[in-house]
């Protein structure tokens, strides 16, 4: 899909990518339907609290150093600020820099929902600029501001006259997409619109989009060997660095869900190649990824030499562990950027994936192709795999775990690990995006899996003492029971949003 930076709001994933949050079936069917474009969403008639795109968008942007994120919303919507700012400080300290980013809100109240609060927002933006002199300002809308129709776009346009740093509005109405990853795109769109400049000269660097850069040192070292610098995004990046990402040799991303918009946009707009292989998790993923980078940056010889050297160190160790991992049965519940990647790695290590749940599914990425990990998995998986698109719905996951009784459950999102443990199943939290990165990560991951399944004391102790939140009735049902029939994808969200105001008026008259 063509990237258009002129529009203030990027389309949701449902609209851009045909993404869905409800599906229950298997690998072969999902790939088949993705290829012929017949995939349709199944809504739920029951759901549990999950995540919204606002948290993802604001979380990404607040990781940039020395900027201001101003959330025009009631107090609760800014509750992510303390966590983000503490994280910023810890991660900045780790690499010996400081991050003075501020993340604040406008604490909207009931009067504001009637009369609007753009004037107060204006004052708050100006005061924030005066207090902190941030290098860029992101002004976010929320559910409330979206519904009452606050015109933050015009306000931001006006303020560009008064504020001499990049300032942009970002549209974070939590209700407009079921897919919180749309928030990643919103953040990318804002960075591309306001900060990134057209290229002047090529830089000897590669853009590396990730979350929290735990392996920053290792990756910097690896790419130094290929004579290339690494520009990590967005955590710990500066506005000045972001201005130049259009000049990089290539963009890579540790997670396809996270990277699709930025990677494709930089390629479409500025000719920066986006590496679209399977991700560098596990051996096959790492090698495919490295080789593609080698081709793009013309360093295939060096990369081949690196692969051979590292293989000799790690492969024998991994092979040794595979003997013990063989046959372990696993259930996975992660975002789609990881579910299919981790499935491949587990199979590579000799484990059996009995169910893979992804929280949403992008039928295609911004280059209109089926996500590579799924495509690859379909070709390499020894058998078909049961899959669901489960929208982080814990009741479905626990039903699956109860039915399939795996040896281990792999989680990736905060608050989702404990439930497998409460059902007595070992669980490993694969939150760090580099947990399975490269040969070394794959080896460490294999060790962690074995450590997890070999000492089951914690889950045994806890499971024997706690009650589960679900009824016996639920455990006797099929996990897809609350999925409705296949529905057409929802109408274009942006059009729907426009009619909100009119509809509200009508409703009020009726009342």
């Amino acid at each position, binding site marked *: 899909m063509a990237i258009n930076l002129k529009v203030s709001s990027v389309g949701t994933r449902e609209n851009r990518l045909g993404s869905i949050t409800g599906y229950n079936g298997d690998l072969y069917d999902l790939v088949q339907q993705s290829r012929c474009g017949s995939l349709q969403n199944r809504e739920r*008639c*029951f*759901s*549990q*609290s*999950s*995540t*919204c795109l*606002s*948290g993802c968008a604001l979380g990404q942007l607040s990781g940039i150093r020395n900027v201001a994120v101003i959330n*025009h*919303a*009631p*107090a*609760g*919507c800014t509750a*992510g*600020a*303390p*966590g983000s700012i*503490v994280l910023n400080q810890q991660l900045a300290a780790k690499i010996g820099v400081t991050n003075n980013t*501020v993340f*604040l*809100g*406008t*604490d909207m*109240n*009931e*009067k504001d929902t009637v009369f609007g*609060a753009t004037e*107060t927002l204006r004052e*708050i933006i100006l*005061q924030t600029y005066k*207090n902190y002199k941030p290098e860029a300002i992101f002004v976010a809308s929320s*559910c*409330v501001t979206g*519904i009452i129709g606050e015109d933050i776009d015009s306000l931001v346009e006006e303020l560009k006259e008064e504020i001499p740093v990049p300032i942009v509005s970002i549209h974070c109405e*939590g209700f407009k997409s*079921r897919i*919180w990853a749309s928030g990643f795109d919103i953040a990318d769109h804002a960075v591309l619109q306001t900060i990134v400049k057209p290229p002047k000269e090529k830089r000897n660097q590669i853009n590396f989009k990730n979350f929290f850069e735990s392996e920053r040192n290792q990756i910097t070292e690896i790419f130094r060997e290929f004579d290339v610098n690494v520009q990590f995004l967005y955590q710990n990046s500066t506005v000045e660095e972001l201005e130049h990402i259009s000049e990089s040799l290539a963009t890579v991303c540790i997670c396809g869900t996270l990277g699709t918009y930025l990677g494709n946009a930089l390629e479409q707009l500025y000719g920066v190649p986006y590496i679209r292989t399977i991700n560098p998790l596990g051996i096959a993923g790492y090698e495919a990824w490295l080789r593609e980078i080698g081709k793009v940056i013309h360093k295939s010889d060096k990369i081949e030499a690196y692969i051979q050297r590292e293989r000799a160190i790690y492969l024998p160790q991994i092979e040794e562990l595979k003997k013990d991992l063989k046959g372990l049965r696993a259930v996975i519940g992660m975002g789609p950027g990881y579910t299919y990647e981790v499935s491949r790695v587990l199979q590579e290590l000799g484990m059996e994936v009995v169910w893979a749940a992804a929280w949403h599914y992008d039928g295609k990425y911004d280059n209109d192709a089926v996500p590579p990990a799924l495509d690859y998995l379909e070709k390499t998986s020894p058998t078909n795999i049961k899959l669901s698109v489960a929208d*982080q719905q*814990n*009741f479905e996951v626990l039903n699956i775990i109860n039915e399939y009784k795996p040896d281990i459950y792999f989680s990736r999102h905060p*608050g*989702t690990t*404990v439930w497998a443990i409460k059902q007595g199943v070992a669980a490993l939290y694969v939150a760090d995006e580099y947990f399975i990165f490269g040969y070394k990560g794959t080896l460490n991951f294999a060790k962690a899996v074995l450590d997890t399944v070999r000492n089951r004391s914690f889950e045994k102790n806890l499971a024997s003492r*706690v*009650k589960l*939140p*679900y*009824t016996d*009735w639920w455990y006797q049902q099929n996990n897809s029971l*609350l999925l409705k029939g296949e529905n057409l994808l*929802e109408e274009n969200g942006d059009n*729907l*949003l426009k009619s*909100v105001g009119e*509809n*509200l008026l009508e*409703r009020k008259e009726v009342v």
Partner: protein
Amino acid sequence: MAKILDQPRYKCALAAMQTVQAITRALPILHCGPGCAEKLSGSVGSSGLYSPHIFPCTSISEKEVIFGGDDKLTETIENSLKIIDADLYVVLTGCTSEIVGDNVEDVVRKFKDNEKPVIYASTAGFKGNNYVGHDWILKAIFDQYLKNKKEVQKGLVNIWAGIPMHDPFWLGNLRELETLIAEIGLTPNTIYGFGRGIKNIDKIPEAEFNLLVSPWVGLESVKFLEEKFGTPYLHYPVLPVGAFETTKFLRAVGEYAGASKEKVEEVIQRKEEEYYYYIERYADVFLETRVMSKRFVVVSDASYSLAITKFLVNDIGLFPSKQYIVDDTPEEYREQISEWFKELNYGIQAEVGFSSDGHQIHQEIEAADFNGYPLILGSNWEKNLAKRTDAHYVNISYPVVERLIINSFIAGYKGGLKLIEDIYSVALTRFN
């Protein structure tokens, strides 16, 4: 009107879903966006019987914004009753459902004959913060769940103090207050945490009185209980920390309850003797730690700012700098609260500032004279301020991101010692 919320120290009314979460086997059903609960839940202490990932949620999308969410809510409640094993279901509304005007009351009424009670509270985020939302939820439970006046049990006291989970020491403090109340011969009744729950809510109308230990949060709900059941309440604004305040507290409660004076004095004497056994042994640390100046600042909610100011002045002999209250205390309570800061030993008075603007608070603290290293008790937001001002810093208040508090407490005699431990564990990391 909107205002700058720089360094947020409170959340919105919907975040008081934690009040429901704190009642064993009570389940919030959220009529709000899909991400509200995750944003509001905080990161620790949340994986009990029901966590935010278990809370049913209508996950409002554009469709409900436009066409209304009544059907979605009905369906969600129906399925919650089938899927989640709970004893009390509390429907909570968020901003979106309130603005679009869903008829939550009507929807919930459909479930009035359900075997397990289903009630609702209006907790739109724009209507107030989680301190007031807490009161609204309690009122909703008292109003819709509790039915009839019951026979009053002599000596039974409902205790209400800090708000669940947002106040980092809420549960430990509550347990310690229960212990103290029991020592003077009364029978405490509380509804939160292990071993308490709906059976304790059932007992609320049987209490002789409600004891509210808080400057303002909780007043609405104890007043409501007075209206509905005629249960009087004792509003004791100072969470007692340390010997001086805890002794005052026990005397006040004892007198109000008509407890035996001898018994109260006997308890006080025994507790104080034990407390001062420790204080005496460690007094040299307090007197001879070179880096401790005499001045301190608390940046917290009204309850902790008042409680800790009283403790450090009246117990430990320190002097208050200007103190800060960051809970967006409603205007009508501010004057009275400021007066309480003037009631300190030896005529000492503390000035107090109410603000949601962390930047302004920090500027004032940086400009203040602490006559040595400042002692700052506050939230995670004060950590950097402490670095800039070379202060001793203890995190006692939301947000608490870099400290784990399970069930420890600062209330009572023991709680005072714990707070001193925390303060000196920081001070002792420096010699001069």
